[in-house]
């Protein structure tokens, strides 16, 4: 099968949907003439022109609001944030407007729009460029939150998100844009809200999503060498969460470790742990464990970055602790 980069998968998904539906357009900082800060819209200005691939000034609140109004009046914008760290400037429009309009109008104004861009850390970028807000957005009814971990999923899920009739937060990573993966030539859609069991196993369930899946996969490989067969679930969507897949797996393995690149308090791992104790209490052979980032702002020094991030060694350690092996 053809192998392409994550950024190409994103550009292909947007381009295919824009060919399919005149109402879809892209706006954001540097998306047009610069071809995207991370080249995720490479070639799109040339194909679709300045009417549909629109460079904005640095005004996240304003252009998120304009996109929201355009959606109310029948268009289907894709709003690119250069990073979701900057989405905080726009969060009023996302939470108070886009996520509410359908409900406040009792169904008169559906909001088919996508807010997308990279989330979380990407190396030594310091505290303000390294945050993961998946759980913040996932907390808000009215939104859907999608977090792909590989090029194949990114394309199928982004196409589904663009076609979706509700506002979707679509979170990528600077550290995934260069990742290569198999992506077929033809069209395909991956439905929102369906997790992927990427590796079957019987000893322990590992649940994660997004970029940090890379570390989970690495940990699962190392555990396999030690005779521990982890079942690995990529949630792919964190609102809604595919609890059926998680619970089914936990009932099989009786053990769960959740890996999340985010601060621990009120995180998605907290939420998943709650649901697992509620629905699979009698099936559990050990407490649920999790590996999150440190509960501090990200720092710059390379060793502090390493200390902050979820580590493969820590994942392995937690798996062993729930299996009661050394």
């Amino acid at each position, binding site marked *: 099968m053809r192998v392409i980069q994550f950024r190409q998968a994103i550009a292909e998904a947007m381009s295919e949907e824009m060919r399919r539906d005149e109402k879809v*357009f892209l706006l954001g900082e540097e998306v047009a003439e610069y071809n995207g800060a991370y080249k995720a819209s490479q070639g799109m200005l040339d194909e679709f022109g300045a*009417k549909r691939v*629109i460079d*904005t*000034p640095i*005004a996240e*609140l*304003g*252009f*998120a*609001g*304009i*996109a*929201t*109004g*355009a*959606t*109310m*009046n*029948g*268009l289907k914008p894709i709003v690119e944030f250069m990073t979701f760290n900057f989405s905080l400037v726009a969060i*009023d*429009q996302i939470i*108070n*407007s886009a996520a509410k*309009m*359908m*409900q*406040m*109008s*009792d*169904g*008169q*104004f*559906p909001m*088919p729009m996508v807010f997308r861009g990279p989330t979380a850390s990407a190396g030594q970028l310091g505290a303000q460029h390294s945050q993961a807000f998946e759980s913040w957005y996932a907390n808000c*009814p*009215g939104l*859907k939150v999608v977090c792909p971990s590989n090029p194949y999923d990114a394309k199928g899920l982004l196409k589904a998100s663009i076609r979706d*009739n*509700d506002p979707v937060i679509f979170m990528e990573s600077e550290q995934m844009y260069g990742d290569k993966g198999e992506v077929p030539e033809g069209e395909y859609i991956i439905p929102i*809200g369906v997790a992927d069991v990427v590796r079957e196993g019987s000893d322990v369930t590992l649940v994660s999503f997004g970029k940090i899946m890379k570390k989970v996969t690495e940990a699962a490989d190392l555990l396999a060498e030690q005779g521990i067969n982890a079942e690995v679930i990529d949630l792919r969507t964190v609102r*809604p969460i595919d609890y059926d897949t998680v619970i089914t797996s936990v009932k099989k393995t009786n053990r769960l470790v959740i890996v999340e690149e985010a601060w621990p308090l009120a995180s998605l791992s907290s939420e998943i742990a709650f649901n697992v104790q*509620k629905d699979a209490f009698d099936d559990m052979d050990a407490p649920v464990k999790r590996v999150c980032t440190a509960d501090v702002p990200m720092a710059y020094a390379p060793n502090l970055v390493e200390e902050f991030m979820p580590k493969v060694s820590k994942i392995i350690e937690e798996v062993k602790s729930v299996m009661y092996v050394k």
Partner: protein
Amino acid sequence: MAKLKYTKETYLKWYEDMLLWRKFEDKTSALYIQQKIRGFLHLYNGQEAVLAGSIHAIDPKKDKMITAYRDHVQPIAMGVSPNNIMAELFGKATGTSGGKGGSMHMFSKKYNFFGGHGIVGAQVPIGAGIAFADKYNDTDAVTLCYMGDGAVRQGAIHETFNMAMIWNLPVIFICENNGYAMGTSVERSANHTDIWKLGLSYEMPCSPVDGMDPVAVSKAVKEAVDRARKGEGPTFLEMKTYRYKGHSMSDAQKYRTKDEIAEYQKIDPIAKVLEHIKKNKWATDDEIQATLDKIKATVKEAVDFAEESPFPANESLYKNVYVEEYPFIKE
């Protein structure tokens, strides 16, 4: 583009519309005290000429309107039945938002009324976005986007003015300067008081307008609408107006004097329009009384309709949050 006419019919319609809005708001105020209406309640009394003049200058069949949370009478002006507005205030299923919106969140897609927004200034980029879509779709519709004198101090307004200019959007930004952002006077919220001049920073056509006079309002809005329809972009108008009631029902209004309110009531837009009608002998006293009776009946019908309507079903809490079925967490 046809020039506006100011005929007998214009004035009679203004009188009837503005008086209906006034009486409707007065009734909601009374119902609020009776606790039939709850939540926050922001009344439009005193500002009616802005809406009457605006409506005269647009085509409500295609043009759009969006405003903040002082939003009961705008949808009525656009064509929504007062029954559905009153029902929304009562939280009834027959309200414009099915009882989910309340006072601050009136919506009517059918009548091009885009809300009803509770975050000060947030409706401004949304209004520009509505206009963006009309330009994108190559229609000649325009959007009237209202904001208060408090909203112009929000950053979103400035971001939006900038983008509306670079993208040449068919939107008319209308600041209803009623003197006070809740209890903070314009004088205390900025070191300048000519709000219209904010447009100058973006080289956007802008001007102050006598917001107590529907003729002045309609002329200014029409000029802006014509410009927008021709593809010549946005306009910013500062309507100098006044609200007689507090910011909301819970406002003790210690920030202003009764004399100040009385001064504005001398130039009350409804009284002024009636004076013009009488001077021109366009209506007899009986006809004026008949209009008042008709309005009272309309308001009464709205209240009866609201009273008799059912509350929304409990299950409706989970409806219309998403378009399709969604697995809500229900514990």
